[in-house]
């Protein structure tokens, strides 16, 4: 371990915002069991590895190409030249794209996607901004979002919480939200399950009677007022003030800092809290 890494690992209780988010994303995977976890973004990759190394050992993770790896590896990859010393990865399975679609339609998957826009019902857009025939900004495209959201549990990671992302109405629906799922009827929507939205400010769920987005917890140092100001729609009301997102345990910080992400790459995804 380098001097800087040792200092960071030893700095103990003070978790970065990215680490809080990664732990919240790991918590979002609780109960997933023997399911494939696919992640967009760095904090979800840290969270998935953390979950596998601690409370969800049966999760299936890939190498980012098409091998299933038996053990969690650093996010920089098992053989990154600047990575830490890691054991040779044990490959436990093969998952080419052809099998990915089979697996996800079969439902044994929890995907954590990103969103350029998301609304109160959990409709997500990362396809384009503006009208689809001639968008102002072409983004990723539909990718697998329509199929993912209608077939298996989906969560979202949003590292830049703002009214431009949490919007009244998304320009294009790539990931299906609860209002649209309800309109399809209980049969077609029976596998639809938007579980958590984790942003750099807090954790959100849809556990209200109308399945509207609700603040589940505020990250340490963030007020409910700040979250409301940064959200372009009205969140579902909380009966009581939302609690703080739990702080990472010392062992979780050790795993993140010494093994999963020793270079602290995921920290660059989230603007660090002032003060």
């Amino acid at each position: 371990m380098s001097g800087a890494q040792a200092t960071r690992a030893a700095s103990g209780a003070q978790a970065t915002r990215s680490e809080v988010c990664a732990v919240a994303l790991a918590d979002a995977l609780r109960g997933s069991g023997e399911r494939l976890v696919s992640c967009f973004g760095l904090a979800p990759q840290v969270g998935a590895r953390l979950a596998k190394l601690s409370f969800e050992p049966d999760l299936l993770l890939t190498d980012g190409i098409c091998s299933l790896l038996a053990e969690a590896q650093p996010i920089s990859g098992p053989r990154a030249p600047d990575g830490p010393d890691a054991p040779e990865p044990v490959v436990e399975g093969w998952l080419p794209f052809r099998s990915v679609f089979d697996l996800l339609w079969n439902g044994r998957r929890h995907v954590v996607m990103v969103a350029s826009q998301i609304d109160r019902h959990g409709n997500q857009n990362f396809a384009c901004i503006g009208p689809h025939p001639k968008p102002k900004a072409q983004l990723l495209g539909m990718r697998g979002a329509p199929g993912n959201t209608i077939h298996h549990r989906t969560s979202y990671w949003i590292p830049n919480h703002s009214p431009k992302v949490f919007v009244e109405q998304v320009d294009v629906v790539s990931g299906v939200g609860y209002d649209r799922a309800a309109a399809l009827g209980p049969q077609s929507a029976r596998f639809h399950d938007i579980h958590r939205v984790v942003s750099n400010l807090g954790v959100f769920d849809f556990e209200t009677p109308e399945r509207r987005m609700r603040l589940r917890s505020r990250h340490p140092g963030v007020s409910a007022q700040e979250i409301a100001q940064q959200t372009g729609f009205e969140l579902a009301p909380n009966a009581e003030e939302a609690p703080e997102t739990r702080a990472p345990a010392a062992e979780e910080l050790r795993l993140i800092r010494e093994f999963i992400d020793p270079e602290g790459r995921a920290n660059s995804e989230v603007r660090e809290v002032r003060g």
Partner: protein
Amino acid sequence: MADKRSSESEAVAELRDGMTLGIGGWGSRRKPMSLVRELLRSPVKDLTLVSYGGPEVGLLCRYGKVKRLIYGFVSLDSIPLEPHFRAVRQAGAVEARELDEGMLQWGLYAAALRLPFLPTRAGLGSDVMRINPELKLVKSPYADGEELVAMPALELDAAFIHMNRADAAGNGQYLGPDFYFDDLYCMAAKRRFMSCEKLVETRELLAGGALQTLRINRSMVDGVIEAPGGAHFTECPPDYGRDETFQREYAATAKDEDAWRRFRAGWLDVSEAEYQARVQAR
């Protein structure tokens, strides 16, 4: 067995304006780029392009060859957004039939099996249904009565794919980690052209990899083109990785007319042999 050895120019000579062309590979991975480069040099236009898109989509769009694009995404992998594709989309210059990735597979599979459609849940509730108004629903005829998307067959006039190894009869072998959807593109198409890194004797195929790497059999292929470096600058493992430096240079040409003119003159307005010689000389 018939000798199906062919050339990029013979393959492209079979294309006509307005045809539907499927291109194998995935993103910036194992794309039949030598065939694409030949197509860029041809007068063919108004194509409907079906692809898990990579740089071939950006290039063909930049050349104005694409009228309609049927895709789930267009990406350079290490560069998530394909810049030339973004530019034509933001100019509204192509008809964009954007699908869920799995729906695209289903459309190819339906065409491969000569079915009019295959049912799927993917697309329900999303704007895939709004931006592809021709998509229809189908109701299960069984007791469940479930409503599903009837993903129509994506019938192709022609398909281009690139393999690691092949023989002259049209048997193809992939040696990388993923076979993608290349067999489906071939089976969905009327005319099928396969380029390969190396043409080998049939008896040599199994020396290169296990039985299940022989994903393409000769009934799926009309023409075989030996094209060493034919997937450049996309990756073609284990023969070579992606040429990331080249890809970055390509991507940078989207916002710089002068850079694009230089890139085109240096890399695209030249023969494939000259292209490969210049790649070697870099």
